[in-house]
């Protein structure tokens, strides 16, 4: 069974000690697993802990964040207990990351060819000529027009959509098995976003990638993912296969998110994100309960009973 799982999180908890006043626990007791070749969407609002999860998996948490409990299992190895050296072998080659704001994520002083080349050279031990070939190939794969001249372009010479393609190229260049997309299209215009999403969809299918797709936009997730998890204040409140989720959303937070898209004033007002208004089975003593209940096969909801 476990052979079909690409990556799984078991009770992952990320804490930011020091920020005691606000008492934030960025991520609390999060578990999920992603099957090979599948896309798990993780939807939540800002501050829900989405980015903390992405950074925990790559072990790049911002100070003073640290993983205080739980494990991250990738191909039967626990990422949490890896040494930095071992981890570095996985990052960029087996597990790669697609980030938002592509223009600030690329080194402004180096050409994109050089930046892509550095990654292949580090992981695949290619020489300069082979690296150049690999880079040109991947630039072509992400449909960058005129990729031969873009090879020596600097990040500031690219448009947002083009830079996003470069980031995608960077995540694919070593043929990873697992890709994390952290709000990858949030900075783009909708028409450009649509193109990028199509590209990603094709690549995922073609390369049989497993993907953790983190986003704020539940509409985007609905069309892109096989499974969907909803993150609320660092915890998963509902997680289900995509069809099961949208046929029968249960948690009040899920309903609030969905009603935000609806034209109906009534439902917007009935369901809010204010937990105080939720009924007892979802919210006790100021907290969401610790237990999750399986309402259908694979459809878990954080509630009592």
């Amino acid at each position, binding site marked *: 069974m476990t052979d079909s799982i690409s990556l799984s999180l078991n009770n992952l908890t990320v804490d930011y000690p020091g920020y005691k006043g606000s008492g934030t626990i960025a991520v609390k007791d999060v578990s999920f697993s992603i099957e090979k070749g599948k896309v798990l969407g993780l939807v939540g609002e800002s501050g829900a802990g989405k980015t903390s999860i992405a950074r925990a998996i790559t072990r790049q948490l*911002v*100070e003073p964040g640290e993983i205080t409990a739980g494990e991250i299992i990738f191909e039967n190895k626990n990422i949490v207990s890896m040494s930095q050296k071992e981890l570095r*072998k996985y990052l960029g080659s087996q597990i790669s990351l697609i980030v938002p*704001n592509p223009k600030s994520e690329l080194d*402004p*002083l180096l050409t994109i060819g050089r930046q892509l080349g550095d990654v292949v050279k580090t992981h695949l031990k290619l020489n300069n000529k082979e690296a150049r070939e690999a880079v040109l190939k991947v630039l072509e794969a992400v449909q960058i027009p005129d990729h031969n001249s873009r090879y020596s372009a600097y990040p*500031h010479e690219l448009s947002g959509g083009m830079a996003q393609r470069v980031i995608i190229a960077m995540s694919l260049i070593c043929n990873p098995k697992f890709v994390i997309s952290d709000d990858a299209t949030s900075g783009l215009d909708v028409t450009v976003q649509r193109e990028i999403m199509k590209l990603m969809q094709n690549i995922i299918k073609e390369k049989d990638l497993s993907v953790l797709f983190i986003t704020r936009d539940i509409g985007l997730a609905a069309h892109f993912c096989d499974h969907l998890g909803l993150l609320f204040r660092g915890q998963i409140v509902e997680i289900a296969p995509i069809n099961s989720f949208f046929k029968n959303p249960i948690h009040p937070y899920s309903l609030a998110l969905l009603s935000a898209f609806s034209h109906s004033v009534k439902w917007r007002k009935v369901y809010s994100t204010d937990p105080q208004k939720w009924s007892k089975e979802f919210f006790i003593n100021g907290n969401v309960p610790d237990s999750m209940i399986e309402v259908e096969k694979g459809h878990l909801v954080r509630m009592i009973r």
Partner: protein
Amino acid sequence: MALIRYIGRRLLFVLPQLFGIVAVSFFLLKMIPGDPALLMLGPLASQEAINEIRSVMGLDKSLIEQFVIYLERVLSGDLGTSWQTTKPVMEDLLKRFPATMELVTLSLLFALILGIPVGILASLLKKSIINKFSTYYGLLAGSLPDFWLGLIFIFVFYTILGWAAAPMGRLDLGILPPAVVSGSYFIDSLIAGDWETFNNVVAHLTLPVLTLGLINAGPIIKMTQSTMDRLLESDHIRYARSCGLGEFQIVRRAFRNSLPSVLTIVSVLYSFLIGGAVLVEIVFSWGGAGQYALSGVLNADINPVMGFVVWSAVLCLILYLIVDLLYFAIDPRLRD
């Protein structure tokens, strides 16, 4: 192309500025009380003698006329004469500026060699002693009076230990200066291959360079550390890390990105030290340009001061131009 246009624009801005500097300093210095003619001839001189000298020096003309005459002469390379040394200012400065530049350049080189590695290490090893050390060193070094530190070094290394050369100029009395090529004894003695002179030059340079270098390493460490801190936390370095690049590559990228800030602080220090090293020059009887200008100010001898101001403004100009070229080389965003 963009570079040439940029330099052109830069020069366009700089020429009026240069004029402004000369004008302001000319009128400012003319306000210094004291009549050079009187100072030159002494209090017992006759009124006729004073008047004669005044007309020779052009002091009887209106200020504006004097300024125009001065400008004309500067443009033809004549900076006037100093009544204190009775020599043309140009000649004096040609001797003295190399001394100052040699001192300042070597001091800053030393400060860079010390400051950059310490700054980088402090930023990389957050919890180490070197981090604490460099944080407070940056503050402390900027707080010490350099002239005082020079004195302490003289006391320790010359008076007590007897390791250093006497703080009396750039060479021992018995040693002849090398043939003038650049004016810097350090370079000229190397060119001449005169090891005895070279060793003596180095012995005299050691303490003042140590003094200025240790003090100016402070801001360099601080700048290196804070920009490296910022960069190591930046999005693109974090992203490079999550691509699995090695630590060496990461540091190299971060350092490359922090170079412009380091360059800026170095250029600021350099232009400051051309005039600001004067007190250390005094302590070590260096005979540099700053000292020359200082005695000019204190004795209402304005030609040396004006000459110094013009020279240092031009030197700063060249310095900033070089710095701009380096920015261009580092950052592709400026090339558009």
